[in-house]
């Protein structure tokens, strides 16, 4: 029997980068196959070739034994390939049913048969155990449901091979669990699944086999039982990765951030301090006020009531500029939207916001030499690749973009660092590095507020953990005493253990 | 200036003419000037060229003909006043004529310029009287082009004429706009006519260049629908009878005569420099009553109007200009 997917000697070049070179991938029918690799390794590119969004420059692709010659989405769909993209491919203003049937709409004459579309989607949903309201508008749905719609969309097209690009990057742990349950049930119905993930624990738990890419090449394919997380990480990065970071006990000093009865959006009155030299973690199921908290604490949202003092200055209703000047460093939740100026060089991005400092400008004219020297130092220290401060930020892969943001914020020596999901979507090597950087900030004496949906991350870094539930603080746990289990109970509204 | 082609020589005299907005084919003001040149071509054997300016190239048009050495360059419309004043100074050896010269902005034309002006209010008074005497609804309309003193002269004369014979008659007034474009907007003209006919007017006098073509169109459409002629238009500048059977009469502004006279004088070596006013007395104005529209204007009406004309000529009636 032919393999479901067979990709041999795939090569794909972009201007300036080679994304894939001599990549081989064999996925057997009916398995769950994971694809891992550091940021920019070429995983997404490989999958885009498979689903007809890119044509390879060289190599052969066979789907169920038949060689692909026509690299167009329609042809891939016809061959039984369906892809759930990293950035969802949806029309937010249309309904679930409309999104699912787009491209092969049921019709009555020239007219769109909405009723039939809705029935079809409802039927699909119940058949695969993925219920959604077919009439809901996509933009009104939470991400978890949006992703469900994406899966329905490919199933509706009779996909026998489902590709999911980093499907859990934006999901809560609960949503991730239910996603993997879905994937297993699809497998039991004979479908093949390929998924990309940076979360090695999930890879181990969900996949049958694993293929690792590094710098555009295949490192190897292994049955999942034969490798542990450390081994996978080593295959990805090319060196052993430290998962356990040694953490010295905290020696907190005076309060840097004082939050009192702060409310706004879903946030319903929270009170806490963050002291110099400590890391306070904020855990919680997504949508329980974390985003609002981060937005208020970076000036992007005005608090409804309450106060927030940074080094004594009341800023709960101030704009980002005031927070910035008071000494806030922020790793924003959404780095593409808030983090970088794509068209500008890495160097300019690295000192953005600080150009007025005498070191970087004289009489309004930018001092290029100082900027470039400092940028080169940061690029080296934070291992940003390519190591060219003049490269456009936009040309960097996701993980490297994140490193630029982290480098910029940390190099400002902030009094308070607000880090929101600082390692979302970055590879294990970079995770290690970012974690160490955050700990170094603590050691330097900065106050750190860490918001993350990754419990292991919070457990590894935080000295104190606040659990948000329904917009209020459901409990506070000392880092050393916290367990995933105990936090999980608090997060879902249970009483403290 | 360039070479000085002596006026009055026997070779074909070359005339350059620059039209006003509305341009060639407005079947009114501009075409009247064109008719004067056609006649001069036929009767005097001259040659001419014309130019339809688009936006700001009026002066460029004048200059072009002056540079080509045309002994006579004509600008049609008050808007040429400043441009002719300027260009004529640069070409002192050539002649220029301006229809509707604006004495407000340049009281004394240069020595090589013929400033042709009309006392439009007098002719408008007469067609106003015709309208006042023939209206069946007791309401008549006036559609002006651009709202400027020149067009207010038309309105004032017309309204005075109406009131002189029919004091209870209402005169509806509308202007198409505040820019020169208002002389070339038949769509707007039609809309204004629609409003005035809709408000009960049965005769509309237009003084609006090709904007008036829309007025004719509205009357034509209304009459066609009803199968009888109930809505009338009074044409302006030229005899606009050709616009259809609903043209009650036309207020003739003999731009053709004025243009022809200037050409003739230039050719004969007696260029008429200075300001020339054309009124009823000079036969520069008039109204149409011939075999084609005689049925629309009864003899009693014509007699009354001729009496009024005599009073104006005798100076017993002074027609208002604003």
């Amino acid at each position, binding site marked *: 029997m032919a393999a479901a997917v067979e990709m041999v000697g795939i090569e794909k070049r972009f201007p300036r980068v080679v994304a894939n070179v001599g990549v081989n991938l064999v996925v057997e029918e009916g398995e769950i196959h994971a694809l891992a690799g550091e940021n920019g390794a070429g995983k997404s590119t490989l999958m885009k070739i498979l*689903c007809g969004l890119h044509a390879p420059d060289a190599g052969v692709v066979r789907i169920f034994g038949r060689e692909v010659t026509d690299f167009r989405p329609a042809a891939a769909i016809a061959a039984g390939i369906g892809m759930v993209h990293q950035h969802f*491919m949806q029309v937010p203003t249309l309904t679930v049913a409309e999104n699912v049937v787009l491209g092969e709409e049921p019709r009555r004459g020239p007219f769109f048969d909405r009723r039939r579309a809705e029935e079809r989607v409802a039927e699909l949903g119940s058949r695969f155990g993925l219920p959604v309201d077919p009439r809901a508008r996509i933009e009104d749905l939470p991400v978890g449901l949006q992703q469900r719609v994406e899966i329905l969309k490919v199933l509706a097209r009779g996909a026998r091979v489902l590709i999911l690009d980093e499907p859990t990057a934006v999901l809560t742990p609960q949503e991730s669990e239910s996603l993997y349950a879905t994937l297993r049930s699809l497998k039991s119905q004979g479908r093949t699944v390929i998924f990309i993930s940076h979360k090695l624990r999930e890879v181990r738990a969900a996949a049958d086999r694993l293929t690792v890419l590094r710098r555009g090449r295949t490192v190897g394919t292994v049955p999942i039982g034969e490798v542990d997380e450390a081994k996978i990480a080593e295959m990805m990065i090319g060196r052993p990765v430290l998962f356990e970071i040694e953490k010295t006990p905290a020696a907190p000093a005076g309060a840097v951030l004082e939050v009192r009865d702060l409310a706004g959006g879903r946030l319903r009155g929270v009170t806490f301090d963050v002291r110099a030299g400590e890391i306070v973690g904020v855990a919680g199921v997504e949508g329980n006020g974390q985003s609002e908290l981060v937005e208020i604490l970076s000036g992007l949202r005005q608090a409804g009531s309450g106060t927030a003092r940074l080094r004594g200055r009341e800023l709960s209703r101030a704009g980002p500029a005031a927070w910035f000047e008071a000494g806030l460093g922020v790793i924003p939740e959404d780095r593409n939207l808030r983090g970088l100026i794509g068209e500008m060089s890495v160097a300019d991005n690295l000192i953005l916001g600080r150009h007025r400092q005498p070191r970087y400008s004289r009489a309004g004219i930018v001092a290029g030499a100082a900027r470039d020297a400092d940028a080169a130092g940061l690029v080296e220290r934070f291992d940003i690749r390519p190591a060219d401060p003049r490269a456009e930020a936009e040309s960097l892969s996701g993980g490297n973009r994140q490193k630029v943001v982290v480098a910029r914020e940390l190099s400002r020596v902030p009094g308070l660092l607000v880090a929101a999901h600082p390692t979302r979507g970055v590879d294990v090597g970079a995770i290690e590095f970012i974690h160490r950087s955050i700990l170094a900030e603590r050691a330097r004496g900065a106050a750190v507020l860490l918001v993350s949906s990754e419990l292991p991350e919070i457990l590894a870094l935080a000295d104190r953990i606040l659990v948000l539930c329904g917009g209020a603080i459901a409990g506070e746990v000392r880092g050393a005493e916290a367990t995933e289990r105990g936090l999980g109970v608090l997060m879902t509204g249970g009483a403290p253990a | 200036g360039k070479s000085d082609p002596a006026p009055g020589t026997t070779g074909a005299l070359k005339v350059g003419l620059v039209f006003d907005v509305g341009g060639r084919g407005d079947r009114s003001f501009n075409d009247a000037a064109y008719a004067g040149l056609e006649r001069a071509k036929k009767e005097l054997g001259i040659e001419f060229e014309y130019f*339809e300016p688009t936006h700001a190239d009026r002066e460029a048009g004048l200059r072009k003909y002056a540079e080509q050495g045309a002994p006579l360059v004509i600008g049609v419309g008050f808007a040429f006043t400043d441009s002719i004043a300027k260009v004529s100074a640069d070409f002192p050896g050539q002649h220029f004529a301006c229809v509707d010269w604006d004495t407000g902005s340049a009281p004394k034309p240069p020595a090589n310029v013929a400033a042709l002006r009309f006392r439009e209010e007098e002719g408008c008074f007469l067609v106003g009287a015709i309208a006042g005497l023939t209206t069946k609804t007791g309401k008549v309309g006036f559609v002006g082009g651009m709202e400027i003193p020149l067009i207010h002269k038309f309105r004032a004369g017309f309204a005075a004429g109406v009131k002189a014979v029919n004091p209870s008659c209402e005169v509806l*007034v509308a202007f198409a706009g505040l820019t020169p474009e208002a002389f070339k907007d038949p769509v707007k003209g039609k809309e204004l006519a*629609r*409003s005035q006919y809709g408000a009960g007017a049965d005769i509309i006098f237009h003084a609006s260049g090709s904007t008036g073509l829309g007025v004719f169109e509205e009357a034509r459409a209304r009459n066609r*629908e009803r199968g009888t002629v109930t809505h009338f238009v009074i044409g302006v500048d030229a005899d606009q009878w050709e616009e259809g059977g609903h043209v009650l009469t036309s207020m003739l502004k003999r731009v053709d005569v004025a243009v022809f006279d200037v050409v003739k004088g230039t050719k004969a070596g007696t260029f008429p420099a200075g300001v020339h006013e054309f009124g009823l007395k000079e036969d520069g104005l008039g109204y149409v009553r011939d075999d084609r529209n005689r049925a629309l204007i009864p003899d009693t009406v014509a007699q009354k109007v001729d009496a009024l004309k005599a009073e104006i000529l005798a100076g017993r009636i002074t027609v208002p200009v604003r």
Partner: protein
Amino acid sequence: MTPEFIAGILTVAAPLLLAAMGGVVSERSGVVNIALEGTMLASAFAFTAVTHAFEPVGPDGRHLVDAAGAWVPFAGVAAGLACGVLVSLLHALVCIRVGANQVVSGIAINILAVGATQFACTLVFESSSNSARVASLPRWGLGAFTFTPAAWASFVAVPVVTLLLFRTVFGLRLRAVGENPDAAETLGVRPGAIRTAALALSGALAGLGGVVLAADVSQFVQNMTAGRGYIALAAVIFGKWNPWGAAAACLLFAAAEKAQVPLQGKIPPQLAQSLPYLLTILVLAGFVGRARAPAALGKPHESSR
């Protein structure tokens, strides 16, 4: 509000409505269509020239305008539609196939349309400013409410475009492409093809708008659209890219223009005349502030291959 006054508003609104529907179709597919103005103008001329060409000619070479067969102006209507489609496809070529800036392509087309129609007018009618009078379209209707078939079409266009956008498969794809062409592409919908079709339709609608204008006065006049394409575009945005909203905005603009006539002499003339434009600015400033444009509006779509 006499019937005459209402009918007057509808007459003024008719060409705006058609152009606005063209604008809705094009912008919903993600293409900014400033070229509406030039499209209308070119079609107005095409209508006039072709109607003229089919009129019988007397022995003296004059066109017997009123003796023309009833079908003659309809040939002109067909020409106006075809011309609108062609101009719009030029816009499509420049900004979909080539991916150039849509605003600039639209402006360039508008300026070219002014020059080209003047030039063609000189060739056909020996005047760059006015055409001859041409055969009229019939008028249908009752009482004050008699309009040319082209104007009637403008009233029908609003529900038809609504149906098209929100009830047909083509409309669904068109809206999807205007919001997220990448997503549509992954599902096998070709954004370029959909946008080209949308522009062709947009051109036909705007072209018919130009025909309404020229047919209303049975002639062509230099630059006779006089900014109506721009006003229609403003109406599209004011109407939040919704056909009924845009139609309401067109009626509002038409009413403002109509209302200006009785206001003449009562308020300063400059104020009366700029009423529609002032309204545009006010309306834009006040209402539209927060309207949400189609997400991919104005962005050329590059297929990722």
